[in-house]
């Protein structure tokens, strides 16, 4: 499971529309927005990094008012657990 801390940047004046449209993406949680309304603080959740990338692309495609989705933090929980448990070989088995 991947959880991001991200900023969605939207066209001026489109924040309410974007918030509305984001409701159809249960993987996105909105926390706050800037005074200008152009930046929204969100989480995006996905099964893995691949899915995260395609989900973000789909969000951008479906909501043209979105200028950009930028990530400041990505929590790779499983990977950290693998680091901790020392199961590197499994993690790095590229064909698994």
């Amino acid at each position, binding site marked *: 499971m991947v959880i991001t801390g991200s900023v969605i*940047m939207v066209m001026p004046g489109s924040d309410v529309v974007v918030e509305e449209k984001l409701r159809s993406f249960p993987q996105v949680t909105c926390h706050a927005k800037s005074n200008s309304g152009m930046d929204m*603080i969100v989480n995006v959740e996905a099964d893995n*990094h691949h899915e995260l990338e395609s989900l973000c692309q789909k969000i951008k495609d479906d909501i043209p008012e979105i200028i950009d989705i930028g990530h400041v933090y990505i929590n790779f929980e499983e990977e950290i657990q693998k680091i901790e448990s020392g199961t590197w070989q499994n993690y*790095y088995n590229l064909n698994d």
Partner: protein
Amino acid sequence: MDLTRREMIKLSAASFAAAALNMSLPRNSSADEEIVVDKWVKGTCRFCGTGCGIYAGVRNGQLVGIRGNPKAATNFGFLCVKGFKGYMSMYHPDRLKYPMIRSEDDKFHRVSWDDALSKVTNKFKELHQKFGKDSVAFYGSGQCMTEESYTFNKLWKGGLRSNMVEGNPRLCMASAVGGYITTFGADEPAGSYADIEKAKTLFIVGSNMAECHPILFRRVARHKLQDPDNVNIIVCEPRLTPTARIADIWLPADPGTDLAVFHCMARELIKNNWTDSWYIENLCRFSTGAKVVDFNAYKQFLEQFTPEAVEKITRCPGANIKEAARLFGSQCPTMSLWTMGLNQRTRGVWANNLMHNLHLISGNICKEGADSFSITGQPNACGGVRETGSLCQLLPGTRAITDAAARADVEKSWKIPAGSIDPKPGFHTMEMFAKLGAEDDTSKPLKAMLVSTTNPAQSLPNAPKYYKGMKDAFLVVLDIFPTRTTQLADVILPAAFIYEKGGVYGCSERRSQLTQKCVEPPGEAKADLWIAAQIAKRMGLEKLIPWNGDDAPTSYKMAWDDYRECVKLTEHTLFGITYDRLTQMEEGLQWPCPNDKSPGTSRRYVRGHDPLMNMPDIVKVPSSALIYFYGDKQHEGKANVFLRPYKGPEEPPDKDYPFFLTTGRVIEQWHSGTMTMRVPEIARSKPNAYIEINPSDAKEYGIKEGDMVKISSRRGFNIMPARIVKNSLPGILFVPWFDQTWDRMINRVTIDAFDEGSKQPEFKICAVKIERVGDPKDVADMYIISDVNTPFPLKI
């Protein structure tokens, strides 16, 4: 993960994002603690020249996560996939953990550090005795920390008295250095990234920023999209890259022909009066390179570059060039940004000069939002190699080794006898590898090489030509993973990853940032600086390089202080950039920074911004001058506007080899893939190289998506799958260079012709032919060289 914990992680992650906007979330008081780390350690990303600030999360002595530093002036907290994930390669089981020596059975065997270092230094000493001081070379990297490059440079030039010092920035940045030095008399840009958000027009040339410098591109894209009607983007680039897709004007010139485009733009600027007469009169010197001429001669020279004539040479529509010139000259301020597409050429220096011409005649430099800005590819090509002078013709402070006063100054700083530094430059990279060989080969004066943090067996153009030299010579490789180069080595010295040692990186905008050591290196791997200092000690040069202790932070600080002192009275002074300040400051500091009160310099050559304008002990500037290019060798404070003749690429397509081949990076992979290919998500998203072909060419050659295609030049061939895409123009093919699979190592195909001035090779352009050789095949093997004893694929 239970709901509560998951919610807390979400809140923590959101609070990091909020910090990037200087906001706080209503309910995040304890959220930070939920991403469980023992500490967050400040540092920089090591996967491109943007210089993104990061925090590395450490738990139980291991790095468990990276987050963006919201206070970093480069990235404001945002990171790309390499920034988030690239570090994970440091825990890959293939890490080199023990020193190894190749034995008589032709296999590597583990030895002690003492044995490995003795082997290296005894051999170096023996070769010095037999063949002289210039028989052993150092080949470094724009990924070494500044302290490391400085130390190896000092060891070679000051200790061993040899200028046989080079680094891979020769392959990526040398033409930018040549361009800045010939135009302005001093290396590196005048402005900063902050000019991006102030520019009304951005001219992006030979750079797929969207993939190669994604966070910088993000700044450009955000700026554009926030005010799409008033911010203009021009992209000059033969492929319709993701970068070109946001452009208002695309200038799709054939590879290597853009000199004509730039001259045409200059002609349009002048014809339409989009020039700045004050800049022309006071800051420009017009020059053919051989003699100084006047503005009228420049105007006349440009007359040959009409839009119609240039369209014929370049295939770039003349109307687009005219519109680009209009935006450049009338919608100011204008900032240009470029990378390898301009540099990796046989006319790379000239291309850089012509970019500067446009800015100088239109007054688009030394002002907010206006700059002529070369972006560096590697994280420390600027800070580590250019600024420390770790190339064969340079001294610290990017001073010429042929300059007697500079040599005397460095000798004094290094406390070595006057006259110790050889005034003759060593071999540049391509010459170095061409002249590397066996002891009994009298045509090869170089007999040994120490390679640090780079992989020339994969990254040199026309690489196979140089394999025999590498194999025959005594080759020592300092790295963290097995590579194509370790396969040719005699000794492997296991090094530390950036977060296992710390040190300073200097990014494209003259900004130095300190990474603090986070964790210990694995096995017996050692900080690279320790390795350099131990070699120095064994070569009897402990006094010159005394920072040979085991505590990495102490040693790196000693080396940094030595370097600060060495460049104290140069145009590149960073004397005020101390470890203490770098530790305290979130955003690092930009040089010139002459003392510990200086806030650094965001805009050079401008009174009120650049402290050197008032520092006569470093440069002399008339008190009345507001803008003054103090690097000018004529002491007039002017920059050269060059009348460079048009010249195309070294090997244009012809009837036998009818295609242009251009090579480059992709967003997921870093350089030769030795690190990024070891991160599963990254490997899976770009598992192999491929050849991008325009649909019309594919049709003509009967090639379908995924078909296996042989791509051949006069030097060699590759076989890889086809990707049929509209973003390559007809006649232009693109192949990324990260893949280390023998069949798909594109530098077996590229050309090793180089720029006469900068000696930088023309990676970006050569002539090739293609042929369909089979149906689609699964080659997504994510190949990496895992075992140091995997034999080299070619019999040498």
